[in-house]
């Protein structure tokens, strides 16, 4: 948690425009993305620290998903740079390459392989050689099995191993996707509304899972569910019209008049 306090020292209502020298996992600088004249991201500058958990909130159209698209290579920025681990320029890499350098992404709508079993979903996600030649001759070995059963325990799907993923409940699909991300062993996890459609009980257990990952992996969570954000007790960034409106812990942010105006007050 010491990493977050460094950022909080910058205070609210300020962009973190200075590149952070030492320990950043991801550094977005002056990112602008326009769609037909609409600026989805407007000179956005953000830094995420290694092993930090951060939540991003903001009203619809604030640019949260576009930001994730830019990081993961789905959308190219019109201007600005994205650096991963301070040295890897993500703007030159394709989606699979970005995934392989260590960024995992969960989509807003659970995106899993509906016709594959839970086991197979996790197997395909596992961090191994992803080239055709390897896949043609690969066998499911004990190491894979162990990794998968560990993950199954974490995501509470141990009893559904051989079930076709399409038959899982919505919340279970969300968990499966989170499990797939964990199998990837990414350094940075981007989670777009991970608890959407989950029951309260499921949401709480997901919060516990994320809290247990704190300090081991860097996590960025985009979320609307304030109770969930509160449970994560993390530093919150408020996006508005494509740039950072303010930043701080949830209570401070919620008390900020600008935030109330654009988002919470409505």
């Amino acid at each position, binding site marked *: 948690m010491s990493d977050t306090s460094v950022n909080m020292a910058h205070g609210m209502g300020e962009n973190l425009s200075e590149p952070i020298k030492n320990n950043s996992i991801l550094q977005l600088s002056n990112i602008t993305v326009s769609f037909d004249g609409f600026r989805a991201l407007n000179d956005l500058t953000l830094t995420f620290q290694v092993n930090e958990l951060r939540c991003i909130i903001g009203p619809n159209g604030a640019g949260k998903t576009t930001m994730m698209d830019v990081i993961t290579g*789905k959308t190219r920025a019109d201007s600005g740079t994205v650096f991963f681990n301070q040295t890897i320029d993500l703007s030159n890499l394709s989606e699979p390459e970005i995934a392989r350098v260590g960024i995992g992404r969960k989509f807003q709508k659970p995106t899993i392989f*509906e016709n594959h079993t839970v086991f197979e979903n996790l197997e395909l996600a596992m961090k191994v050689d992803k080239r055709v030649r390897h896949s*043609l001759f690969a*066998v499911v070995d*004990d*190491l894979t099995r162990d990794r998968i059963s560990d993950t199954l325990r974490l995501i509470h799907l141990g009893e559904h191993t051989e079930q076709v993923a399409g038959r899982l409940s919505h919340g279970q699909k969300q968990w499966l996707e989170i499990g797939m991300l964990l199998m*990837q062993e990414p350094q940075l996890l981007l989670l777009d509304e991970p608890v959407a459609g989950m029951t309260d009980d499921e949401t709480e257990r997901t919060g516990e899972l994320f809290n247990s990952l704190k300090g081991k992996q860097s996590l960025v969570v985009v979320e609307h569910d304030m109770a969930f954000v509160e449970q994560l007790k993390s530093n919150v960034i408020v996006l508005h019209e494509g740039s950072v409106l303010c930043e701080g812990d949830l209570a401070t942010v919620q008390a900020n008049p600008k935030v109330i105006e654009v988002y919470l007050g409505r």
Partner: protein
Amino acid sequence: MKTNRTPFVIRFFAATGCKGWLAIGFFSLLTFVLVPAAHLMLPADHALHVSDYAVTLIGKVMCYAIVAVAMDLIWGFAGILSLGHGLFFALGGYAFGMYLMRSIGLDGVYKSHLTDFMVFLDWKEYPWYWTGTEHFLYAVFLVLVIPASLAFVFGYFAFRSRIKGVYFAIISQALTFAFMLLFFRNATGFGGNNGFTDFKRILGYSITAPEMRVTLFALSAFMLMFTLILGRYLMQSKFGRILTAIRDAEMRVMFLGYNPLWYKLFIWTVSAMLCAIAGALYVPQVGIINPSEMSTANSIEIAIWTAVGGRGTLVGPVIGAFLVNLSKSWFTVAFPEYWLFFLGLLFVVVTLLLPQGMVGLWQKLRHRSMR
């Protein structure tokens, strides 16, 4: 790291389960022993004699079945509809046809070392790309390499540009159509609209001999079984799981770090190669290859065989190819002018009512009777 190191060869063949091997054993007995024996040894008036016509017809349909399975690999498993498979089939046929033409030797109409159509066009020598085609093994090499190379290059650019769905189907058809126009030209050097015909022999043996007919029949059967075994291995491997994953959620596959381009390109090229082999086996059996093999209707028919049998099932396309082609050979004799209507109707009915084809229907019926 403890790993389970079963040799690859064993894993390759073990992918086809017990039931599969039982079916293959039965099919081998039929195609390697019973049909050849019934054709060669029984007198023509015997009740169990298999006629020339029947051997050639079934041999031909087995080549079609290979194409249907190849189509299933790319369409059923990877979700990419190709309307260009007629092209790879025809190119394989042409590549082997060049050897068949050279083997005619001086027995052609004009008694020339050149092919008849070249004499007719008043050509004095073989064009450069005919060099070496008098050698059987070189012709086999061409069959394996030329259509696959074309598929690789075309696939690379199409998949790299992320062309999908109906757009891919259309450009694959456009490519096929362009080749058909090219092959229709006399100047292209492949016999223009008459193509290749009047074959005499393969490796010195007469092409019309019953033994040759049975050999080609058995080779087609062998190739069909090999295609199914290969298909089964590919589809139960991790590669196959990734392929179906690309079909269902390509975005997720990319964000897991796989580049779909190489996966699609691999199966696409394998599929084209299988079509080419089927084409090379087909041509000596039917005795002719011409550009009409590259017509739009042919490529669409391939898709229909696969859809009728059942996409994504491997054995389904074989059933589909047999069902459609055997009914075609009956229909075109009984009601020649209605065949295309029937084919269209069949496609509509299967698409609307039987999305999983005949195999899906069978599974549904069995499921119902078990309850």
